């Protein structure tokens, strides 16, 4: 009680001064008037051990200083790791929290697709050739691989579009958006694999020991998708056509990829399918996981090497294009 009264008294006596009677200067009165700590000009502080690094922004093209560019890219990648992890956590949590079915959304699409094609095939509506493993397991595994590729393809475009307002306001390493998407893809893939394992067990599908190499081939498939997505992402921020075109493209692309049918052997269609780079990557992954016999290792090696190289080039394009794109979309 007494303490409370004393506090009250102190509050009343606290000098809430509109400065002294002689004050005429606006700045001083302002500081005193609100009891705000006046902000003193920089005082002598213990000298920092080393001055922080200097960044220079000029109009000059970054390609004129390739070494500096390479250093910046490596630095950005290192700085992206913890941010990408946080972004992925945020998006995954949000994705599953505001949803009744939650994790089910990861494996519902392949299940529906696989069930549909299995029924169509059994009812002789469509005719697919013989597959190495029971057809439902074949379609399910292939669909999971295909959708992982599509997620990798859409990831950078969708991620950059979703981060639009953030991109216009904060200069965080842009690579983190793409990395976060890769983490998300990996998480969704793990959920789907549970389903694949269950179906394989049900149909007693034999699995070759080469399955341990399958993740590498799968990584190659994801990298190829990311490569294309990364190239399109900056332009997707400028033009909405990119997003729409991508949806159309993936629909047509699925037809040219042996996902619901085995690899065709003769005819023009077979040539088209064989020249489709996704075929080499997807089929190799599937073969490593099931039969253990890789039918076209040369093509796989070429596509993988090309996508690794291409990814590096695309990364440079992405990195250099982003400031110009951000400039045009405003905040």
């Amino acid at each position, binding site marked *: 009680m007494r303490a409370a009264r004393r506090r009250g008294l102190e509050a009343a006596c606290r000098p809430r001064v509109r400065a002294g009677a002689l004050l005429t200067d606006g*700045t001083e009165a302002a500081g005193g008037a609100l009891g705000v700590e006046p902000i003193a000009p*920089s005082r002598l502080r213990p000298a920092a051990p080393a001055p922080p690094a200097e960044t220079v922004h000029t109009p000059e093209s970054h390609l004129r200083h390739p070494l500096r560019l390479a250093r910046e890219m490596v630095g950005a990648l290192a700085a992206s790791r913890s941010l990408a992890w946080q972004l992925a956590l945020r998006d995954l949590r949000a994705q599953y929290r505001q949803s009744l079915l939650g994790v089910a959304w990861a494996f519902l699409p392949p299940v529906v697709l696989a069930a549909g094609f299995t029924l169509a095939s059994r009812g002789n509506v469509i005719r697919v050739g013989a597959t190495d493993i029971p057809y439902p397991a074949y379609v399910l595994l292939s669909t999971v691989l295909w959708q992982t590729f599509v997620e990798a393809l859409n990831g950078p475009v969708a991620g950059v579009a979703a981060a639009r*307002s953030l991109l216009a306001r904060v200069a965080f390493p842009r690579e983190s958006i793409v990395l976060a998407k890769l983490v998300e893809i990996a998480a969704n893939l793990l959920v789907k694999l549970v389903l694949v394992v269950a179906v394989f067990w049900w149909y007693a599908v034999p699995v070759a020991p080469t399955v341990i190499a399958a993740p590498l081939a799968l990584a190659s498939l994801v990298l190829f998708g990311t490569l294309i997505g990364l190239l399109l992402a900056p332009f997707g921020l400028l033009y909405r056509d990119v997003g729409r075109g991508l949806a159309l493209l993936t629909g047509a692309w699925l037809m040219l990829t042996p996902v619901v049918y085995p690899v065709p052997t003769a005819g023009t269609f077979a040539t088209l399918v064989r020249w489709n780079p996704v075929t080499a990557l997807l089929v190799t992954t599937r073969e490593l996981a099931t039969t253990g016999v890789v039918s076209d290792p040369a093509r796989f090696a070429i596509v993988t090497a090309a996508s690794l190289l291409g990814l590096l080039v695309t990364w440079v394009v992405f990195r250099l294009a982003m400031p110009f794109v951000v400039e045009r979309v405003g905040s």
Partner: protein
Amino acid sequence: MDAAVTLRVERVSKKFCRALDRSLLYGVRDVIGELTGARRSADTLRPGEFWAVRDVGFALARGEALGLVGANGAGKTTLLRMIGGLIRPDTGAIRVRGHVAPLIAFGAGFDPVLSGRENVFANMAILGVATRDIHRRFDEVVDFAELGDALDAPVQTYSSGMAARLGFACAVHTDPDLLLIDEVLAVGDARFRQKCFQRLARLREGGTAFILVSHNAHAVLNVCERAVYLRAGELVCEGPTPDVLLRYEADDFGAAHDARGRLELPPKAPGESLGVDVRAVFFADDDGAPLAGPRTGAPATLCVRCRVTRPVRDASLTVVVNGMGGDAERVLHLVSSADRQSLSIPTGAVELRVRWPWCGLVPGVYGARVVVREGMTPLDTVESFRFTVRSSDVVGPSVYHQPRTWSVVPIGS
């Protein structure tokens, strides 16, 4: 660059294009130019372009605060975005030493479904804080934001004030070398704003330099000792904040305070006038003699001299007085119609007056907004009439002046 200098802006320009289709096309061309390593002919305008920022240069030392003032579209935000490294300059160079953090529209990057706790991690990571450091500072951030039990509730259940507090708390706990503050200090209640100012003061003592963009002259005056005034992308003047603000206000409102505390306004173009044009605002004593400013406890009359071209029967005068503090708190809000006074204004030169039998304001500097209305329609507005209240006596720590008499009265038993 000198280690004591945090930022150096050297003859920086930026051009923009208003037409969207053309702007996007230029964007694609710029990207292609960048990718082919071509040197852009950046100092000429392409069709449809204009200079958003033109040849601007200044420097900022460690721990210094710089105000950036100018009308809407003067290029303040564009300049800030170039300094922040979001967009590239078209000419010139910007050198920044250390980490730059934007103090942006609160809670950019907040996900409404996630809890405050989860959003702190994502938001601070975006602002460039390592996860380890977020863990270390987490309690401090949460304390600052004053969320209490709401910390684990989804952000979409927060009031706008709570979300703003959390956003600000994240932003000011990033320990930047240069903090870019764009029009955000006007959020939250007065007490929280004061806390923000205190936190900013502490950051500054630690060597953080600031750039503050604000329409609010008072905020700039309180935080920054130096200011830069931009008009249509060009630097008009740079120097001590009070001088720069005077120049800005003189330009922006066409108004100039003279040495005797009188505000003179230029005549309006015939098309702009609504019948009543304010030409001067000043204080006068009871004899009608002009005063440099009112004295605490003494009578004062605020005179609003107008040029009237048509009679107005149902007129009213509004005077809003703000302190010049960090949050520019409102001190007086006087409206003639609220006092049931109907003013009838004849044509010619007329003075609208409001007499204070005694001035209750304590000594200090104030800004007044003066509006003449017909019914509810504003006829003319003076945005900022600045005046100084003086006193011949010591006022003490009172917040306002209470006229009073003291006495001892014996009461018979």
